[in-house]
């Protein structure tokens, strides 16, 4: 009897079969792995498959990898990851490119791998796959700006990944174990915990290391951005909730993180960049909840992450549909679209109402937990900042995004509604936005701690509605009086400057002085070797031998495999098959390591 199946690995291995299918068959196949993963997670929740404990212990060197640590926290995140991925995949069904679907599957699968990881090595492994898969989703836009943004995105995550790797190595050396649970800043791990912390919060996009998010997400493909909005930051929130709950720096950092991006979102012109900033703002609420660290705050964080993935996915979907249909993504070019896209406009408004925690929509039932817990523990400044951010998020995501895209000044663009699969994907998420807002009990039941939370009390509803509606009054008053800053075709300086300017200088430093120095040494060594001239003939013989061995012997095996695979290549060309070749090599190494682990 099967005890437990890893839903992430279903997706990762399922991804390799995608290039074999075409057209309708591909669309049908795409739904199989994700449905299987979703079913597995639901079966786990219903306690048919194991719903607590650790599974899949794999010996690795002298350690044991734990691929499946299952408890209420990881199950909750696994459920929302698979559920959101299901809707997002339906949204992306019209995409022909196999490689894009493979990247999506790898991305979701590795995010699930992070969620179920019970040890630091597994965590790091999936963490890096996630970074690379999301990078592919940016590059597949195939524009020059996307290429540049992708490199910057990779530079940030490379830095974060190195911090994490260094921290993990130090942690393993000091504690002697690769298993982890609560780490805590400066606790058992000492210095190691700070490095691990930096690696985690970089993926959570806390200012000032958030520059990658608003920089890269708007450059990703339409469907890629929808996936990216859900997994990178929320897996970081999950891992922080597990390893660093109750860290004061997260609470204050999270509170600042909710306010900081609001100003940028007001100034920004690109629709998806506005959404990127509001994503940072929402993750700030979650990190604040992690920093408070009480059971209710953690529950608030988890449920907010749950709702957030749904409504943020829906916002990116509606913005993506507009970009897909009109080809324009700036607020200055859009407007008046509700006349021909009423369905997309309605979905966008549902998501916008959810993100601004409008009573009756999903954000309200989750965000109020965090804010109310901050108030109950008398963190006055945090409470004021969070409420300011709540008013602000209504302002920029609740009104600005639907208003400037679908209403405002009529741009004269008349396009049809997006394709059917996009509309189905949007309606699934829109349904959950309203369902969780009206009847949040199913969500509260699966939270990691038992909570008795009543969101719909008189003072919560009235207070929230008053705050939001008077924020909208301020918007109306300022926009009719002309005080509201008009949209401009400009870019705003943010911390991506760090990678763009000093980073470029660093690259220049590596390209020019360092290489010049290396060439200088090479030349002189060669000259010295030339002076000795022991026996030129033997040197030539050795060189030929080395050449034969490396350039012919070692490369002939992969070439033979490649020759065998070549006739099978599909419409997308060689890339998927190269990936299969990488997988084969990878499996080969894994098997060798496993054998080593068993024998030693």
């Amino acid at each position, binding site marked *: 009897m099967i005890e437990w199946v890893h839903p992430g690995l279903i997706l990762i291995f399922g991804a390799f079969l995608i290039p074999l299918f075409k057209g309708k068959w591909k669309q049908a196949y795409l739904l199989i792995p994700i449905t299987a993963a979703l079913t597995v997670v639901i079966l786990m929740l219903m306690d048919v498959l194991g719903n607590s404990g650790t599974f899949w212990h794999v010996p690795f060197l002298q350690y044991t990898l734990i691929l499946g640590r299952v408890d209420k926290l990881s199950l909750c995140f696994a459920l929302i990851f698979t559920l959101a991925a299901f809707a997002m995949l339906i949204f992306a069904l019209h995409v022909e490119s196999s490689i894009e679907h493979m990247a999506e599957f790898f991305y979701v699968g590795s995010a699930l791998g992070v969620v179920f990881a019970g040890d630091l090595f597994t965590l790091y492994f999936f963490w890096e796959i996630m970074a690379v898969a999301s990078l592919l989703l940016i590059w597949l836009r195939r524009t020059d700006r996307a290429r540049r943004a992708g490199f910057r995105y990779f530079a940030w995550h490379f830095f974060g990944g190195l911090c994490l790797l260094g921290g993990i190595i130090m942690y393993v050396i000091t504690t002697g174990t690769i298993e982890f649970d609560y780490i805590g800043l400066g606790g058992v791990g000492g210095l190691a915990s700070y490095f691990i912390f930096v690696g985690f919060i970089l993926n959570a996009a806390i200012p000032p290391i958030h520059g990658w998010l608003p920089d890269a997400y708007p450059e990703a493909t339409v469907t890629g951005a929808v996936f990216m909005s859900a997994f990178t930051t929320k897996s970081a929130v999950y891992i922080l909730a597990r390893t660093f709950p109750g860290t004061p720096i997260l609470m204050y950092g999270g509170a600042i993180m909710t306010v900081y991006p*609001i*100003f*940028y979102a*007001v*100034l920004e012109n690109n629709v998806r960049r506005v959404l990127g900033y509001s994503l940072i703002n929402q993750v700030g609420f979650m990190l604040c909840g992690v920093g408070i660290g009480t059971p209710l705050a953690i529950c608030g964080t988890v449920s907010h992450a749950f709702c957030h993935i749904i409504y943020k996915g829906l916002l990116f979907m509606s913005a993506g549909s507009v970009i897909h249909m009109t080809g324009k993504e700036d607020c200055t070019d859009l407007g*008046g679209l509700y006349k021909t896209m009423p369905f997309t406009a309605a979905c966008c*408004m549902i998501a916008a109402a959810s993100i601004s925690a*409008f*009573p*009756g929509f999903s954000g309200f039932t989750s965000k109020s937990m965090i804010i109310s817990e901050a*108030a*109950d523990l*008398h963190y006055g400044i945090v*409470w004021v900042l969070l*409420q*300011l951010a709540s*008013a*602000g998020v209504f*302002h920029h995501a609740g009104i600005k995004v639907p*208003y400037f895209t*679908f*209403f*405002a*000044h*009529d741009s004269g663009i008349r396009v049809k509604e997006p394709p059917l699969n996009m509309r189905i994907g949007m309606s699934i998420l829109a349904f959950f936005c309203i369902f969780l807002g009206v009847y949040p009990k199913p969500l509260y039941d699966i939270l990691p701690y038992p909570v008795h939370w009543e969101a*719909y*009390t*008189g*003072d919560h*509803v*009235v*207070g*929230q*509605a*008053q*705050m*939001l*509606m*008077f*924020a*909208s*009054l*301020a*918007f*109306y008053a*300022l926009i*009719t009086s002309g*005080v*509201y*800053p008009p949209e*401009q075709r*400009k*870019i*705003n*300086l943010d911390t991506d400057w760090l990678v*763009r*300017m000093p980073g*470029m*200088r660093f690259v*220049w430093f590596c390209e020019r002085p360092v290489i010049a120095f290396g060439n200088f040494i090479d030349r002189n060594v060669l000259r010295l070797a030339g002076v000795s001239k022991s026996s030129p003939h033997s040197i030539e013989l050795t060189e030929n031998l080395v050449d034969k061995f490396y350039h012919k012997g070692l490369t002939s095996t992969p070439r033979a495999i490649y020759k065998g695979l070549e006739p099978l290549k599909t419409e997308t060309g060689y890339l998927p098959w190269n990936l299969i070749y990488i997988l084969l090599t990878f499996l080969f190494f894994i098997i060798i390591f496993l054998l080593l682990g068993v024998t030693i």
Partner: protein
Amino acid sequence: MREKITDRNLLFAFFASFLAVIALIFFIYWYTHSELWHEVLLWLYVILAIIAYVSLCFMAEKPAHPHRSLLIIIYFICLATIVLVGLPVQWHIQFAWQALVAFYALYGFAACVFLIYFAKGLRLRLPKDLDYYEKKRGRRL
């Protein structure tokens, strides 16, 4: 002389009857103090806020919506009702300032005005031309 049934009249009639329902249920709740009517009132209140939100999106449109003036009236009636119904609510006081009359309304308004003026201030420094980085890079490398 009988007035024709137009979109505009229909819209207004719907809204007026909705307000009447709220008033009716408010009085029933005031008379009975039962949980159920409180719940119903709460949800009607939520719907009122949603009406205000939707009408805001339409009324600030350019060129002006045909029913703009009516939408503005509806919007402001909603705002007034939201404040008025909120007055007798029992607040759960965690900080002293929450006890102010219509505190949340004032805070939401003030927060947004502050936000926009601060953003206007930032606009003096932050925005750069679209090819800002390309230019800089061209000069250095």
